[in-house]
Each structure stands twice: as structure tokens, then as C-alpha cells.
């Protein structure tokens, strides 16, 4: 990790979100520093995805703060920010990689158009340079450049996921949120995708929050881990430390339940 500044990029303070009587996130607080990859693990229904969606502004929060330090070094509370401001940040300084690539891609538009969309939304209106950028990014995510005019539905699952990552990284975001980025992919494709994400995260120095239920993915990607259960963070710490020496009973259970071959 490099470029650690004095203030965190994102700090979440006492975030609460419930659906009726069901509390999905209870008093969640954490900080994210530039260039850091934070993993959120836990069983299904533990509130991981709700937390991610709440941070991204896709869900309104009941209480708490989501303080983000922008590129211009202003601190804004995303939970209270205007929708216009939030949507602008989501298109520029933030990225969101969905579990299912088809939720994050425009399936009826070619790969090149998918990569160029964020740039066009920012007002780039030169076809030639949009295309050059798209070619560069296809290369960066290991997709053959001659697939630039093909529709994402002609791509394999792994390629779609890589295209989605390229589409998000094209504006050089400072934070990328990933919801189970390797879910539903077979093991060899998963490994390749993990390598790619690790490389891109390092090259572009983006901070990531990766939600996963797969401890192997967490071990490979994350610098730091947060274990969630029933909407609460039960344990947090450096990945290796936490997985090698789990303190909380639930983390111990989680670690011991991983199948080893």
C-alpha cells in the first residue's frame, strides 16, 4: 500500500438500516484508506450486500454517516448528499461491480459502447478517442481487441465480468465496490479474474470494498477483513491475522467450515 494520507477516503459511522422489523445493518462503522482493499465476509443474509448498497447510495440509510473525501479533498456525507451529487460521484469517482455482469452492463450495446458510456456521460464527444480508450481497456482486461463491436451476450461469463470491471475503471474511480465479483464463475475463471482484479487495483491505486462469502477470495484480494453476522460487524482486522487466528466464535466457525482439498 502506498499513498496513505492522513484522513481516510471513506469513513462510515454508526450506519443503521432496517427493513421493517428486520435489522440489516446495525451500528456499522469502519474506515477505508486510499488504495486499500477491504473484504466483507459473512453468511448469506448477514447484511453484506445491504451495507454495500447503502454505502453506494442505492438504499437510503436509517441513521449514520457515510463520509467520503472527494478528489477535491472535500468531505461530504453521502447519506445526506443530494441525489444529483451522489449520482455524479457514482459515475465518476466510484465504481460498482455487480455480481451478475448483466445487471452492470448494457447487454444490447457493444463492448466498446459499454466501456465508453461513463466517458460519454462526462461529455466526451470524440468517437475516435472513445474507441482508442475502449481498445486500451479491452487489452487491460485481457479481452481480444477484435471483440470491441460484439455484444456482451456473445461473451463468456468471465469475459462479461471483466468487461464490467473495465467499464467501471475507465473513469479512474477512487473507490470500487464489488458485490461477489467472482460468484457464479468456475474455479479456473475465478482465479484468472482474481489475478486481474489484484493487478488493476495495484496499478490504478483504487480502494475497494469486496463483498464475498468465499474466504479464499477474501484471502487473495483483501488487505483487511470485516466479518458480519446478523447485521453486525463481529470481528475486523488484517486478513491473514483474522483468518489464521480468529477470535470470535462465529469467525472460528466460518474459518473451520472452509472445505480443503
Amino acid at each position, binding site marked *: 500500500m502506498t499513498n496513505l494520507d492522513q484522513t481516510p477516503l471513506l469513513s462510515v459511522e454508526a450506519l443503521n438500516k432496517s427493513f421493517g422489523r428486520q435489522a440489516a445493518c446495525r451500528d456499522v462503522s469502519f474506515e477505508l484508506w486510499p488504495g486499500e482493499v477491504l473484504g466483507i465476509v459473512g453468511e448469506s443474509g448477514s447484511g453484506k450486500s445491504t451495507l454495500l448498497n447503502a454505502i453506494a447510495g442505492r438504499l437510503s440509510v436509517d441513521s449514520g454517516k457515510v463520509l467520503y473525501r472527494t478528489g477535491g479533498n472535500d468531505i461530504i456525507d453521502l447519506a445526506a448528499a443530494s441525489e444529483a451529487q451522489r449520482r455524479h460521484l457514482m459515475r465518476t469517482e466510484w465504481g460498482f461491480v455487480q455480481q451478475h455482469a448483466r445487471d452492470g452492463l448494457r447487454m444490447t450495446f457493444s463492448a466498446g459502447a459499454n466501456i465508453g458510456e461513463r466517458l*460519454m456521460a462526462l461529455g466526451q464527444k470524440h*468517437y475516435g478517442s*472513445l474507441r482508442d480508450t475502449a481498445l486500451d481497456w479491452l487489452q487491460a482486461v485481457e479481452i481480444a481487441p477484435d471483440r470491441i463491436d460484439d455484444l456482451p451476450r456473445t461473451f463468456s461469463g468471465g469475459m462479461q465480468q471483466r468487461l464490467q470491471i473495465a467499464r467501471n475503471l475507465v473513469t479512474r474511480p477512487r473507490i470500487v465496490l464489488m458485490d461477489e465479483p467472482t460468484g457464479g464463475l468456475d474455479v479456473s475463471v475465478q482465479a484468472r479474474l482474481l489475478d486481474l482484479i489484484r493487478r488493476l487495483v495495484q496499478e490504478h491505486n483504487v480502494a475497494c470494498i469486496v463483498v464475498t462469502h468465499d474466504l479464499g477470495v477474501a484471502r487473495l484480494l483483501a488487505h483487511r477483513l470485516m466479518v458480519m453476522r446478523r447485521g453486525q460487524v463481529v470481528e475486523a482486522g488484517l486478513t491473514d491475522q483474522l483468518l489464521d487466528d480468529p477470535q470470535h466464535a462465529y469467525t472460528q466457525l466460518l474459518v473451520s467450515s472452509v472445505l480443503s482439498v
Partner: protein
Amino acid sequence: MSVQQNYRTGATLAGYNFAFLDEQTKRMLRRAILKAVAIPGYQVPFGSREMPLPYGWGTGGMQVTAAVIGSKDVLKVIDQGADDTTNAVSIRRFFVRMTNVATTEKTRAATLIQTRHRVPEIPLSEGQILVYQVPIPEPLRWLEPRETETRKMHALSEYGVMHVKLYEDIAQHGHISTAYDYPVVVNGRYLMRCSPIPKFDTPKLNMNPALQLFGAGREKRIYAVPPYTEVKPLDFEDHPFEVERWPESCALCGAGDSFLDEVILDDKGSRMFVCSDTDYCGERREAGHTGRMSAPYKAEAAE
């Protein structure tokens, strides 16, 4: 009294209000139109009424026309540029029965023009009103199916995705292949669909001295381009907006500056190009202009 008698005597049909709609409905429509004029390009919702015509046949345009027509108006109705096609004839007849206004085929003589899919070739002037029939008012519809989301996108001017569509055109066809209903930005603010007019007509919307009103009956939206408003088609820096061109000029009047329809003449591949605007073509022929196929006919007639 029968309909036919009415038609002759000049009185409007008994039992119907002037211009078919009741006064409260017209009031509601006029309020929507005023709002639309105040916010150029913004789609104003209105309570669309059932018209004696199926949706998709110009019910939106008819309601707008009914709301603005007065007894002294001179009405012209065109469909694809022609005054004598089914849709134009039936709508014109409807308004004659319901208002007994004078009608014309001359663009210059009309005060109110309802149109489907064309802007007249003869430039409009101040004081004229052009009413468009609009099937789908939302330019972002095929890119974003949710109405709540498209409204938000309009509110926040998030129009980047429209360029994605034009990008896709170039990527697949080598040029912007969108040929009609070309996306435009009105007054530097709202993205607008200019109804399915060919892109040949799109530049005519810009800084037009006439008032342009758009009515979508099924979708229940009215929008407007007030006189002398900037209307800018979207494009790329290296792929600028261009209008269609034809290999020939009009076969009847020889016009090289009008929108031409291609007419297949036989099964051996012969064809002719002819002005889609019948009034414009007729006016030119009256003035003595001839085209590739009009000359021999005239010669025959002279013999």
C-alpha cells in the same frame, strides 16, 4: 340535421362543442401547452381524451390542434408531406365538421398546420403554429425502460447514454445511421424527440419563427419548441450531424433541395424520386419548373 347538410350550410355538427372537446378539456390542454412553451423541450403530462380515432393515428396532435384552433384559423393537415393521404384527409375533414374553419393546402396560407412525419419545405413564418403527432415522446425510452428513471435523467441532464446509441450506430454502420426521430437538445437543456420526422427536417426546427407544438395522445405528453429557440442535434466531433442526400432531383419539379420519396415504377428496377411535400412540388411546377419525367408528359399534352 344530417351531417351532409351541416357540411354545406357551414354550421358545426349539432350536439358537439366547437372543435369537439369540451371547454374544460381545452382549458386543461392550454395550460399544459403554456407550460410546455415556458419550458422548451420539457414533456408536460396531460389528461389525454379519447378521440374518434385509434391511438397512433394522431390523437395527440388532434387534441393540441383542437385546443389552439379558432374560428378564423386556416388549417392545413399533412401526412408524410402530402395533403391528400388518408390520415391527412380524415383529420382535415374532422376539423371542418367540428369547427367549420377554412382549410388550405398552401403552406404560406395556413395559420395552423398539423403534421405527421414531415416539416413543410416552404419556411414557416411568425404567427404560424405547427402541430406534430408524436407516437413516443420519451427520447430515452429504448435506453431506459423505467419512467421514474428517465424523468430523473431529464431532471439531472444525464444524457450521456444517448451518445452511447449514436456510438453504437457508428460502430455497427460506420456512420450515424439514425435516420428519423433524431435526438436533439432544445435550448441547451432538454433532450427531445422531434417526432418521427426524417433527419433532413431536423435543422428546420432550429430558430424557427413558428411555434412548434408536439402532442402524444397515448403517452399523454405535450411538449413545445417556442419561436426562435435553439434546437441542436446530438453528434460526435469527428462524426458531425449530416442530413440525407439523394442521387437525383425531383422527377416532377426538378427540386434538389427537398426531401424526396423513392417510388418503384415496375419490376425491372426503374424508379423515380419525387418531393414528399406535395404543396412544395406543385408550387414549383406551377412556376414552370420541370423534372426528368415531367417534360415529356407536358410535350404530349401540348400536341
